[in-house]
């Protein structure tokens, strides 16, 4: 079958590797350590059936970015390297009742948002959280933010896990992680994180687009960010704790240090990870609130609603079909999006009959997509698909080959406005440094692991 490449089980691999990619994307993956990392993951105890890489996969640390694997809850392990440093790095899509043709002053509006939503290095939170409040954030995520008046219930109902991952105990978060997170709640951060104003440019599936509240010509807003320093610290803390208590002997990569899911340490990591995920959910909820407040000045009658909010760096207990029956397994998605098909209880009630929305951002200046999850993805990829364009060119190569002026000019020729706190960041995140998102989406659609619903074209981009 096209778009599926098997990596044979050899050496210490416990299962084969499966790479979902076109021939072209697969060739790109051979150029870095992606496939080696797929093989490394295949060696982890308790892995079930296959070690997967998505069409946008590229080299990461531990798992490749775009890596997915499911683990037996009794015999399996959990590794911080299967979730990543930016725990619950995720994408939220907002729909509005604005028509792009009615708005001419995006530059002014973007500049206003830039001042309103803290972004870039060293830009701190507008909130001063007490320790007790931070505990609430860590336990209750976006639901905490809504209770505090930063949004409405429908916002978290349209978020994975209703904006709150269960089982997070703030006691499992170190003082250092707390210190890093406290001043960063409600900030976008830097690197590949962004806020983008877009327009629904093409509709591939009218029926499902309607269910998701998306209409051609209407404006959407996409926010990509994660758990900031708090999540990064949780990952570092537990990598070190696992090294000390479990050890690193025999590991193909030290970043894959792990603990049994059922062990005390494994449980503590999953608790801390849930806290960091909740921090990320709350983070985007606050950003949503500030976007609403700011855009009201320009459009008093504007309605801004959450389409959906997907996690793409996370481990979750989910039911999947294993050995002829439904079984609870731990699925780790590192740079991959859950893509459940129709009927799953995890999907918001108003979308359940069609499937879960999958938000797939493109690179800077290129289109993004909304896909819908499928039964096929539950069969092929533990209910997962790609998470974005995926990097192709290193940051240093981008700096050598491109310059910020050209990147900006190219975007401006396409009518896209850009505001960024960092010139170097513009070059590093240029579209040329990424895989072709259209190709990634095409592969997902052809395989049926995430079907195309609409395409979103960027109008204005704010980069951290």
């Amino acid at each position: 079958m096209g778009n599926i490449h098997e990596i044979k089980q050899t050496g210490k691999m416990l299962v084969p590797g499966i790479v979902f990619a076109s021939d072209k994307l697969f060739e790109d993956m051979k150029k870095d350590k992606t496939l080696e990392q797929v093989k490394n993951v295949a060696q982890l105890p308790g892995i079930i059936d296959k070690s997967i890489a998505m069409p946008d996969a590229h080299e990461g640390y531990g798992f490749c970015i775009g890596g997915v694997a499911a683990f037996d809850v009794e015999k399996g392990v959990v590794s911080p390297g299967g979730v990543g440093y930016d725990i619950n790095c995720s994408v939220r899509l907002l729909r509005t009742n604005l028509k792009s043709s009615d708005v001419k002053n995006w530059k002014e509006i973007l500049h206003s948002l830039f001042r309103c939503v803290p972004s870039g290095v060293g830009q701190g939170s507008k909130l001063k959280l007490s320790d007790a409040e931070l505990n609430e954030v860590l336990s209750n995520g976006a639901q905490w933010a809504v209770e505090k008046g930063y949004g409405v219930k429908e916002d978290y109902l349209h978020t994975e896990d209703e904006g709150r991952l269960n089982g997070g105990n703030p006691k499992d978060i170190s003082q250092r992680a707390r210190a890093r997170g406290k001043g960063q709640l409600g900030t976008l951060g830097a690197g590949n994180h962004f806020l983008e104003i877009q327009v629904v440019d093409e509709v591939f599936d009218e029926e499902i687009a309607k269910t998701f509240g998306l209409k051609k010509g209407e404006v959407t807003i996409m926010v990509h960010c994660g758990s900031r320093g708090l999540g990064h610290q949780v990952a570092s803390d537990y990598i070190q704790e696992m090294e000390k208590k479990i050890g690193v002997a025999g590991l193909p990569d030290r970043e894959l240090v792990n603990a049994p899911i059922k062990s005390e340490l494994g449980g503590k990591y999953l608790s801390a990870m849930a806290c960091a995920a909740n921090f990320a959910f709350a983070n985007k909820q606050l950003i949503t609130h500030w976007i609403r407040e700011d855009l009201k000045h320009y459009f008093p009658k504007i309605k801004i609603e959450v389409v959906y909010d997907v996690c793409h760096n996370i481990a979750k207990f989910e039911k999947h079909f294993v050995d002829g029956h439904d079984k609870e397994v731990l699925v780790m998605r590192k740079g991959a999006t859950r893509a459940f098909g129709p009927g799953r209880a995890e999907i918001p009630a108003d979308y359940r009959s069609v499937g879960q929305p999958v938000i797939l951002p493109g690179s800077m200046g290129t289109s993004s997509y909304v896909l819908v999850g499928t039964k096929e993805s539950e069969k092929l990829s533990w209910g997962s698909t790609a998470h974005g364009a995926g990097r192709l060119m290193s940051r240093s190569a981008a700096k050598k080959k491109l310059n910020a002026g050209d990147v900006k000019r190219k975007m401006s020729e396409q009518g896209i406005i850009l505001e960024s706190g960092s010139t170097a960041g513009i070059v590093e995140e240029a579209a040329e440094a990424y895989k072709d998102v259209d190709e990634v989406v095409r592969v997902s659609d052809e395989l049926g692991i995430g079907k195309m619903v609409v395409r979103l074209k960027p109008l204005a981009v704010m980069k951290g």
Partner: protein
Amino acid sequence: MKYEFLEHTADVKFRAYGKNLGECFENVILAFSEIIAKGNKITPTEVRNISVKGIDKKSLFYKFLEELNYLAEGGFVVCSGKVNVTGNSLKAKLYGDSAGNYSGLGEVKAATYAEMRISKKSAKRWLVQAVLDV
């Protein structure tokens, strides 16, 4: 050569050299500073003293990078330093400045063990290598 950056698809990979591990780590500070400074010239106006202890050499290196990053996130941009390594521990004196005095600074998300190397090439030549998640 004190340090150099190498190709990595997603993140920042670098190598630092020295006649001993302490000197390697001093050059790691220079590489780290270049990532954070993003072209700004950092004036050494502040000093921070840190001590770091690992369970082995690699964990020492990892924790050292993590410490540099923790300070950076707290608003201290390092530009150089003196490092003394004893066994799996180190003490370092870091020179740098407040991040508030600069604009367009870079960010590191985390230290990683990916492709980490610490090797003694000859009696007076050491090499260390790491990838930072950015």
